[in-house]
Structures are given as structure tokens and as C-alpha cells.
């Protein structure tokens, strides 16, 4: 398998401090003053030229947030965050908002080039890639460019930054924003509702199969800024969309905050496939720096026979707190969650999903693979529940953990709640280390230990990798190899 060989090569090439997206770019930024207050929220709202209702919505969330306490139930430890020591808005001076590719600051374009994200449509058409991907590039607090907009428009698909959508399609945004993750949902979601700066908006109209993969690439560049993205994806009756999300940040000694909210709405017979490759800066090998990633992602299978599928590859962030969930409201709807969470160094991951069965004949499937190395802590936390009237709910959950080294921890905390006799839930979890037999087999054939581990790990996560769109699958495989670099010996 070429991909496996590629992983081995990657692992062999890279040094101990392996984060390759850690570069910083000097770009003159337009920033709001540090700290959080109603003034800052008004400032953000004004910068984005938002309508009055949006500002009110934000302020209401902010007032509520002030009354909330930071949750402590997750298995992650970090010093208390000073929410007043963060910049909530930072935009490149040269490119304060979405624009055409020719007007984007060349420095920013260079950043994306370095990251390997294609922003020029013609480059993508030149045959470098086999399939085309429309990209919304979010740089700190603003979306700088969205590609293929015109072509998507012809198909009826709306794909733009959420700031633009608030201005151009206020009714749609107003109808759906906060309808899956209400402003009252949880501490970080409430904070996000108050201060979110950019993200993507997607609407695939009735009966349309989105002609290309959509993707958003998030980059945190500026020091001491928090990134608060907000993404909203709606698939109308019978529509289909596949959406990818990628993230990176520079290597810094301070921790930075990323608190995102993603809402998906699938109407009757619609399908949304949401894939994430999360590769925020994880901190150095001594646990210094890294992104705090507190994310609320939720999909609402609102229509009958709708389907939402989450696939995530989590390799970055110092702390991950993330539970992409599905509310299976429509009869016959289906939710899926495929996850690979790799932790190394001092990373702490507390991630999983929620499958909430409300409609009749709903089904869900959870495949979670956790890999812990170094002195990291890796927790799967998931909930499967049925409503009393949710007849014939089906769930299958499998969460496996692999431990590499004796200083790390792998934990599994599932919550299983059955309230209907016709429910059928199956849950399995295992934790083990890499089989010595398998390792011996590889070593004996002359494969070096680290490469052998990468090979075995790739086998372990294969079920999830297969769910990713092809371009991402290769990328994800490389990432996993890189993340585990230095975990042996």
C-alpha cells in the first residue's frame, strides 16, 4: 500500500519536534483591544456590518455567559483561562474581509501555499488534484477568500463566510443559527455565540447533490488571539454535501483558545458528511504552548431518513474538548461518528460523541479509535440515549484504545441510556498495547521499530480512515505517523 509506505517515509524523515505548520507570518493586523466586554462585542458586530438582531443575539449570549461557570467534568487539566487576556478580533489590515483572490494580501496567500491549501481555482483545475475542492480560508477572525463561489452558485449551493451570509442571506441565517446549538447550550458555545468572528455558511437546496467537496481551512496566526468560528450547514430535502475542515496554528509558548460551534441541519432524505482533520499546534515536547480546543459540534437530523456523518482525525491541540453529536429527530434518520484521536507529548484529549435517538427507527454507529503515547491522556466520552417513544432505536459502539509507552493513559467513559424496550444497544470497548507478535513480525522482516508501529497503528485506524474523502485519507495517515513520531524509546 502506497499510503502506508508514505507514512513510514514521513515518520522516518521528521525530527522529534515534528509540527510542520508551526511557522508564523508577520502580517499587519487590525485588532480589537484585549478583553471581553459589551463594547468589544459591539465592535465585532460593527466590523462585520451586522444587522441589529445579530448584535442583540450576541449581547444576550454574552449576558448569559457572564452567569455561567466553566465546566470541570472533563478529564483535562489546564490553568484557569483569563478571558480578559485574549484578543477577540484580529483581521489582516490588508484583507479585512472576504474578497476576490487577486485582492488577497500575497503574504496570506503564501501562508496557504505553505500549508498546501489550494486557493487559486486555476491551479486546482490544472490537474494537480483529481477532484476539486472549494475552500473558504479563515485567517484569525476573518474569512479571506472563498473559492468556486460562482460555480457553486450555478448549482444553487450557497457557500460563503458566515459574516457574508449574515449580510446577504439574513433570513436564512436567522432561521437556522442557534437552532441546533442554542446560545444557552454550554459555557463555550455561549461564549462563541457572543464573540464568533467567522466561519462558513453552506446551504444546499432541495434535491441538489453538491458538485464538489466543500472545505474550510482555519488558521490562527496572531499572538494571544482566540479564534471563535461558527459554521452552519443546511442540507435541504434530498440534498447531499460533503464538507471538510482543517486547522493549524503557529508554534508558540503561550496557549491559545479556539472555541468553535458547528451546526448541521439535515432535512428529509438529506445527507451531510462532515470531516475534520484537526491539527492545531499541540505544544512542545515539554507541554509548553499549544491550542486549547473547546468545540461544540452538533448535527440535527431534522427530517425523516436524513443522515449525518462525522469523521474526525484529532492529532493536534494541547487540550481537546469536543463531542460532535447527532440528534436523530426524524424517523428513520441515521447518525455516524468515526474518530481517530491521537495524543502524544503532553496532549490531553477528552472527545467522543452523543447520539440522541428521538424519532422512530433511528440508528447510529460509533467507531472511535484512541491512540495515546508519550505522557498524554486520551479519553473517549460518549452518550447514547433513547427517548421513551423512540421505537426501534439501534446503536452500535466500538471504542478501542491503543497505548504506546507506559506513561500515558487511555480512558473510556460511555453513558448508555435506554428508555424503550425495542431499543437495541451494543457497546464494546477495549484497551491494549501494540501486540508484541505483530511488532516482532514486522521487525523480523527488517522494518524499523518506529515504522513498524506506524504500520500497525495504520491498521488499527483503517476503519475510520476509510470514511474520509480520499485526499484527506492520505493526509490523515501522514498526520498520524507524524504525531506518533518520537513515541518510541
Amino acid at each position, binding site marked *: 500500500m502506497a499510503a502506508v509506505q508514505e507514512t513510514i517515509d514521513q515518520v522516518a524523515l521528521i525530527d522529534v519536534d515534528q509540527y510542520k505548520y508551526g511557522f508564523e507570518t508577520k502580517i499587519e493586523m487590525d485588532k480589537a483591544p484585549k478583553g471581553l466586554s459589551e463594547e468589544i462585542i459591539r465592535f465585532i458586530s460593527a466590523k462585520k456590518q451586522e444587522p441589529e438582531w445579530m448584535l442583540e443575539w450576541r449581547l444576550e449570549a454574552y449576558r448569559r455567559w457572564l452567569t455561567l461557570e466553566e465546566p470541570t467534568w472533563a478529564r483535562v487539566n489546564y490553568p484557569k483561562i483569563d478571558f480578559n487576556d485574549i484578543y477577540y478580533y484580529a483581521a489582516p489590515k490588508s484583507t479585512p474581509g472576504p474578497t476576490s483572490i487577486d485582492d488577497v494580501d500575497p503574504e496570506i496567500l503564501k501562508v496557504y501555499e505553505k500549508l498546501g491549501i489550494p486557493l487559486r481555482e486555476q491551479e486546482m483545475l490544472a490537474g494537480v488534484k483529481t477532484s476539486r475542492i472549494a475552500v473558504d480560508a479563515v485567517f484569525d477572525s476573518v474569512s479571506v477568500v472563498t473559492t468556486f463561489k460562482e460555480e457553486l452558485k450555478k448549482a444553487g449551493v450557497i457557500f460563503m463566510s458566515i459574516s457574508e451570509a449574515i449580510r446577504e442571506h439574513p433570513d436564512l441565517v436567522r432561521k437556522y443559527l442557534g437552532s441546533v446549538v442554542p446560545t444557552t447550550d454550554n459555557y463555550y458555545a455561549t461564549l462563541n455565540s457572543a464573540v464568533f468572528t467567522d466561519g462558513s455558511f453552506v446551504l444546499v437546496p432541495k434535491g441538489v447533490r453538491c458538485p464538489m467537496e466543500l472545505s474550510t481551512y482555519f488558521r490562527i496566526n496572531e499572538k494571544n488571539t482566540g479564534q471563535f468560528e461558527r459554521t452552519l450547514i443546511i442540507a435541504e430535502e434530498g440534498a447531499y454535501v460533503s464538507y471538510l475542515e482543517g486547522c493549524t496554528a503557529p508554534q508558540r509558548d503561550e496557549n491559545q483558545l479556539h472555541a468553535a460551534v458547528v451546526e448541521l441541519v439535515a432535512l428529509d432524505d438529506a445527507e451531510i458528511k462532515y470531516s475534520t482533520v484537526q491539527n492545531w499546534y499541540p505544544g512542545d515536547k515539554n507541554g509548553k504552548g499549544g491550542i486549547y480546543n473547546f468545540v461544540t459540534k452538533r448535527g440535527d437530523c431534522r427530517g425523516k431518513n436524513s443522515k449525518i456523518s462525522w469523521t474526525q482525525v484529532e492529532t493536534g491541540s494541547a487540550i481537546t474538548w469536543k463531542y460532535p453529536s447527532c440528534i436523530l429527530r426524524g424517523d428513520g434518520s441515521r447518525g455516524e461518528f468515526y474518530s481517530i484521536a491521537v495524543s502524544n507529548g503532553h496532549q490531553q484529549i477528552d472527545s467522543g460523541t452523543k447520539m440522541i435517538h428521538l424519532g422512530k427507527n433511528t440508528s447510529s454507529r460509533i467507531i472511535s479509535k484512541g491512540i495515546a503515547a508519550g505522557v498524554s491522556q486520551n479519553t473517549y466520552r460518549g452518550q447514547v440515549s433513547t427517548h421513551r417513544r423512540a421505537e426501534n432505536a439501534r446503536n452500535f459502539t466500538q471504542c478501542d484504545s491503543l497505548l504506546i509507552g507506559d506513561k500515558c493513559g487511555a480512558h473510556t467513559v460511555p453513558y448508555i441510556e435506554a428508555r424503550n424496550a425495542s431499543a437495541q444497544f451494543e457497546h464494546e*470497548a477495549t484497551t491494549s498495547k501494540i501486540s508484541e507478535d505483530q511488532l516482532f513480525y514486522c521487525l523480523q522482516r527488517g522494518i524499523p521499530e518506529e515504522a513498524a508501529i506506524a504500520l500497525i497503528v495504520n491498521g488499527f485506524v483503517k476503519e475510520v480512515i476509510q470514511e474520509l474523502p480520499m485526499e484527506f485519507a492520505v493526509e490523515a495517515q501522514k498526520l498520524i505517523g507524524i504525531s506518533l513520531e518520537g513515541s518510541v524509546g
Partner: protein
Amino acid sequence: MNMQTAITMTAAETALVDGYTAQIGELPGEGAVLSARDTLLADLRKQGLPTRRVESWHYTDLRALLRSVPAVDPTAFAQRVDPLVAGSSVLSVLNGKADTKGAPAGVNVRSYAESLVEGVAAADLVERDADDAIGRINGSFVRDGFEIEVAEGTELEQPLELQLVQSAGQSHTRFPVTFGANTKAVVIERHLSVSAAPSLVTTVCDLILDEGAEITWIILQQQGDADSHLAQVNFDLGTNAKLRLFVINAGGKLVRQEVHGVTTGEGSDFKLRGINLLGGETHTDVTFTLGHDVPNTTSTEIIRNVLLGRAKGVFQGQIRVAPDAQKTDAKMACNTLLLSDDADFSAKPELEIFADDVQCGHGATVIDIDATHLFYLRARGIPENKARAMLVNAFVDEIVEELEDEAVIEPLEAIIAAWLETHA
């Protein structure tokens, strides 16, 4: 949790706090014992009963579920019943009053009231952790129980039955039990209720198994439909010690059985087998934690639940593997037959692993009776209700069969059959 401090006390909380003031003069023990009780009660008053916000009580909101506490009833009358297994030695606790007569040879028994009076019990009266509501209530009010020592090398031919019979009111008892090296015994901890009047029973058993001890401990809980039963078993396994713990719940209105253990000796093995027969309005919670603290220890846990009527069932199981506890082998399974749309079951099987060379796993299932199994039996002319009963019986009987000793298996099977007869 500090959030609860400002909340006004519920009827049950008030009854407990006021009850303490009323009883304090007659509770055995002074000095250190008294101050340990005071500390526990002060914590109970300060924190209140746990709510679902307390993670380990997430599915059993004791504050909401324990609506009232029956008054202490000194006039209540209870008497011994025949042992479950003919020929067993019986140590009885009648309405919370322990009778030390009946101990077999090699088993040294004294009443826990004496330990309280002498003050040696003071060291026991502490909380396991900040969420230990059972330890807190029991420790505040404990009046009696048994302190049992099984002498090194003792092998009991017949089971030892600890028979707790309750007719009304409250009883709070403790059982520190030490099994000496290489002892072998079957102990049946049996909870019965002989009246329809509501009662509150709390027990704490602290089991220590020395090197090579092989013990089977069976908890059979058959309290009444109005009773609250809050029980805790703590155990510590020495080198090569083996404990098989059977928990059978077939009664009670509000039941929480906690099992907390640690393996402190290499080569030790623990087995938990649970059968929860839940019908009517019961809320029954089995909460289990096990710390594999040293290398080379093993454990398996199998819990089978049958739910009917409006019953609510909870299983929480947590296996922890300490950083150096390599070669741990731990497997946990929780299988539930949910037979009623009004019943509900919640499970939280947890793994917390800090060592890499381990084999740990857990599985949890919730299903109705398999239609193909039912069809198989129906096709052979067995009426539906009978076929269902057979399948349910087979589901739990598998666990009982593991006891191997027919003398113990038979009466337990009879109890299960009788329960299914009246509830299904």
C-alpha cells in the same frame, strides 16, 4: 459540591439531621467515635444528599429519590428465619441488633457495638471520598454489626449466613471482616424485610482477604417494595487472594449497592457477578469501582439486568489500572433485557488505564428478548409467556450456575423463579 450549600434541606435531609440530634445520646461510642460521627454528619448537612450533578450519583439522584426517612422504631419486631442453605451457620441482625451467637469454629465474631463503645471503630468512620453519601449516613448512625475474623487456614464446610431481617424503621450496620491467609468460605449476606412498613437500611462491609484466601460472598437483597437500601462493600485483595462477589437484587424501592475494591497483592483475582431483577417502581443502582493497583491481577465482571414494569436500573462500573500495574487483565460486561417501555436502564462502564501492557475491555448491551429465540420455542409448541419466562430465566441462570455448589444454586434459582412468576 459547593453549589449545594445554599439549597434548603429536603424532608429526608431534615429527618436525618434532626434524627441525629435526637439519637445522639443513645448511639454507642464516645470520644473519637463521637467526633467521627459529628464530622460525617456535618458533611452530610453541609453537602446534602448527592444530586445528579455529582458524577458518581448521576443516574441516582438520591436527593430527589429519597423522599422520606422512616422514624427509628424501637418497638419493631423481627425474628430469625431459616437459612437460605440448609446447614449454614447463621449470624443474625434483627432490626439492626446483632446477635453474635452461631459462629462456626475458626470464626471469631464480636458485635460492632462493642468496637464502637471501646472506640476502636473510630478509624472506620471516615468517608471514602467526597461523594460517599452511604459512608456518611451509615457512619453517622451506625449502631451495630459484626467484626469478624476468620483464622488463618480455616476452611468452612458450610456457608456462613449473615441474616439481616428488618421489619420497620431504620438500621445502620457495619461488618469489618478479615479472612486470614489461605481461608476458604462462602458467606451469604442476606437482606430480608418482614413487614410492609417502609424501612431504611444501610450497611458497610469492609472485607480484607489475606494471602491465598478464596472467598465467595453472596449478597441477596430481597427487601420490601417500600424499603430503601443503601449498601457498600469495600474490599482489599492480598497476594493470590480470590474473591467472587455475587450481587442479587430482587426487591427494595430505592436500592444502591456500591462495590469498591483494590487489588494490593499480585496474582489476586476478582469476580463480580450481578443479577438485578427489577420490577414495579424500583430504582436499583449497582455502582462498582476496582483499582488494579499492582501488576499481574485479573478481574471479570458480568452484570445481567431484567427490567419490567416501571423499574429503573443503573449500572456504573469503573476499572482503573494504576501506572505500574502491568499485565492487568480486566473484562466487564453489562447485559440488559429491557422488557417494558416504561422501564429504563442506564449504564456507564468506565475504563481508566494508566499502564500499557494490559488487556482491558468492556461491553454493554441493551435489548429485548430475541425474536428468533422466541420463535424457536413457539415453533415447538411452548406458549409465548412460558417461552419468554424460559428465555429470561436462561439469561440470568447462567450467572447462578457459576456458583457450582448445587446446595447454594438451588435456593437461588427458586428465588429467581418465584420473582419471575410474580412479576412477569
